[in-house]
């Protein structure tokens, strides 16, 4: 059992406020992923939870107990670092034993525990190797093993896979997910990687400039981004954005004028957007309908990914739009195409960047 609660957490370094009031509740056994651009404060936030950084203001609660001033080891957490941070002078066995020894666990118990974990992580043949003799993936496993043996209530990961090559990263991702299901411990995971965030998280926290932009399940963020930042940040290739102007609006829908002077009726709540308001229309590449009536343009670049094809289409007004189609789709370079924008897949964002509320939830989220 472990819940983590952040109440208006703040961090100031020499007058610079890095974390500007983060409030968050992490449920027991939940897998929470922090994402955000470089420098947004993900690591800082994680390190404050770990106890490696002081909390300037706000309360941190683990299982309802305020732990702001509790030492890292007494918070019942274990952390896996991006650089692995193994003790280079100790072999794998001693690396895992270090924390147990400091905690005063008897030798026989330590040994049983370490062997158990080594078996789970397939580290048995390497127990007496030094970290320098191991490959990146093996080191990563040792780092995870060192965290697991201590039986923590909460696991903290700071970009644990970013030093591995793509193939190994994919493999370790699956291993971590399996491990999480097996251990069922509350996990907080920082990453840059969209795929890691989308596939592993129960809940994603999108951070920007020390502020939480949105918290939700991966699909929630994907299909119902709360604002322009989240819409831009989640999804690859990213969402397309087109400037539009409100023609008529009601609580039922908003009719917008597109750059080519045609109209589109989007089913979102338009009660606060009178006619004439400038909005941003967003649509994901896979929702752009090629060869349907709509905006006219010309194919400028074709990217064939095998399973899918990305068409970069130059619209009449000069804007570039990306449409994703299946791998077999064929549109020659420089040929003219018409792209349809299915209204139920369109997002509208106001000048403040906030999304207008959609009427229909995505079927998977309903």
């Amino acid at each position, binding site marked *: 059992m472990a819940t983590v609660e952040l109440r208006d957490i703040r961090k100031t370094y020499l007058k610079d406020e890095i974390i500007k009031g983060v409030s968050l509740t992490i449920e027991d056994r939940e897998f929470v992923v922090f994402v955000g651009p470089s420098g947004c404060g993900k690591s800082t936030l994680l390190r404050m939870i770990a106890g490696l950084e002081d909390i300037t203001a706000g309360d941190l609660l683990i299982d309802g107990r305020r732990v702001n001033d509790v*030492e890292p*080891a007494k918070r019942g957490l274990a952390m896996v670092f991006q650089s692995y941070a193994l003790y280079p*002078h100790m072999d794998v066995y001693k690396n895992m034993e*270090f924390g147990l020894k400091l905690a005063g666990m008897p030798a026989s118990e330590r040994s049983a525990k370490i062997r158990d974990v080594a078996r789970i992580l397939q580290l048995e043949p390497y127990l007496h190797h030094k970290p320098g003799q191991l490959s990146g993936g093996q080191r990563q496993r040792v780092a995870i093993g060192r965290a697991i043996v201590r039986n923590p209530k909460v696991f903290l990961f700071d970009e644990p896979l970013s030093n591995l090559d793509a193939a190994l990263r994919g493999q370790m991702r699956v291993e971590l997910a399996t491990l999480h299901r097996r251990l069922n411990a509350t996990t907080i995971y920082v990453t840059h990687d969209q795929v890691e965030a989308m596939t592993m998280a129960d809940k994603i926290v999108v951070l920007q400039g020390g502020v939480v932009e949105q918290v939700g399940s991966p699909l929630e963020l994907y299909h119902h981004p709360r604002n322009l930042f989240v819409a831009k940040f989640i999804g690859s290739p990213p969402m397309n954005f087109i400037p539009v102007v409100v023609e008529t609006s009601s609580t039922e829908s908003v009719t917008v004028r597109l750059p080519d002077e045609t109209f589109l009726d989007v089913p979102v709540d338009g009660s606060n957007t009178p006619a004439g308001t400038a909005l941003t229309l967003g649509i994901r590449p896979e929702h752009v309908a090629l060869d349907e009536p709509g905006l006219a343009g010309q194919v400028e670049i074709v990217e064939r990914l095998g399973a899918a094809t990305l068409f970069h289409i130059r619209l009449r007004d000069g804007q570039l739009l990306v449409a994703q189609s299946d791998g077999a789709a064929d549109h020659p370079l420089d040929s003219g195409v018409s792209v349809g924008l299915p209204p139920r897949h369109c997002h509208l964002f106001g000048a403040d960047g906030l999304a207008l509320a959609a009427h229909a939830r995505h079927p998977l989220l309903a």
Partner: protein
Amino acid sequence: MAIKRPKSHTFAIGLLGWAIACWVFFPIAWMALTSFKTEVDAIATPPQFIFRPSLASYHEVFARANYWHFTLNTVAISLGATIVALALSVPAAYAMAFIPSQRTRGTLLWMLSTRMLPPVGVLVPIYLLARNTHLLDTLTGLGIVDMLTNLPIIVWMLFTFFREVPAPILEAGRMDGASRWQEMTLVLLPLALPGIASTALLSIILCWNESFWSLNLTSSQAAPLAAFIASFSSPEGLFFGKLSAASTLAVAPILVFGWFSQKQLVRGLTFGAVK
């Protein structure tokens, strides 16, 4: 060493290295040579390279002064000052490397600046302090002064070595439940051991060779080898044979020590560069 140099280049560098080494080592070799000459041969002009070796100077030196008394003093002072200096510097360098504040850089520079002061500038105050605390001509007194003069260099060296240790490794230790003390002794020290060893070696060598304070703060009881050498120098520049014998005896132990630890010394001093 990934860069490939042309052969002639390597040869030239080797030649230059040998030339510098010979140039630096010549006075020491000459001193050793002179120590085996008779006093007459020692001052002969032109200088003699070929002569009949004699142990006369050594016999005289051993007869006139208790070499072992001075040597033991030097060993005690060098080791004592080094151990105390390390005990004080390790926590200081740890704090500066891993918990820096806005004033860390300034403090480091200030500490180093104390080394730029000519020691004679503080001779009177230090002498008076030593006299009033009854530390004149004691091993403790000279040891403390040697320790303090080397402290800035030792802190600096340890600071650079500690900076090479990735902070996450220490943080991992803290997450594993290590106290600050355990973090230092169980994680940091084993990792920085090569650096600490070469720092210790350097400190011992500096203490061994220190002469200014040795001559001014000791007379007989605590006199180290520097005083031993000085006692054989005469203002008229006579008795080169005995002076050379005394000097050779004084530097021989540290020379041998340095020879055996040179690998460690070089490794430590280039620790940051080759990583």
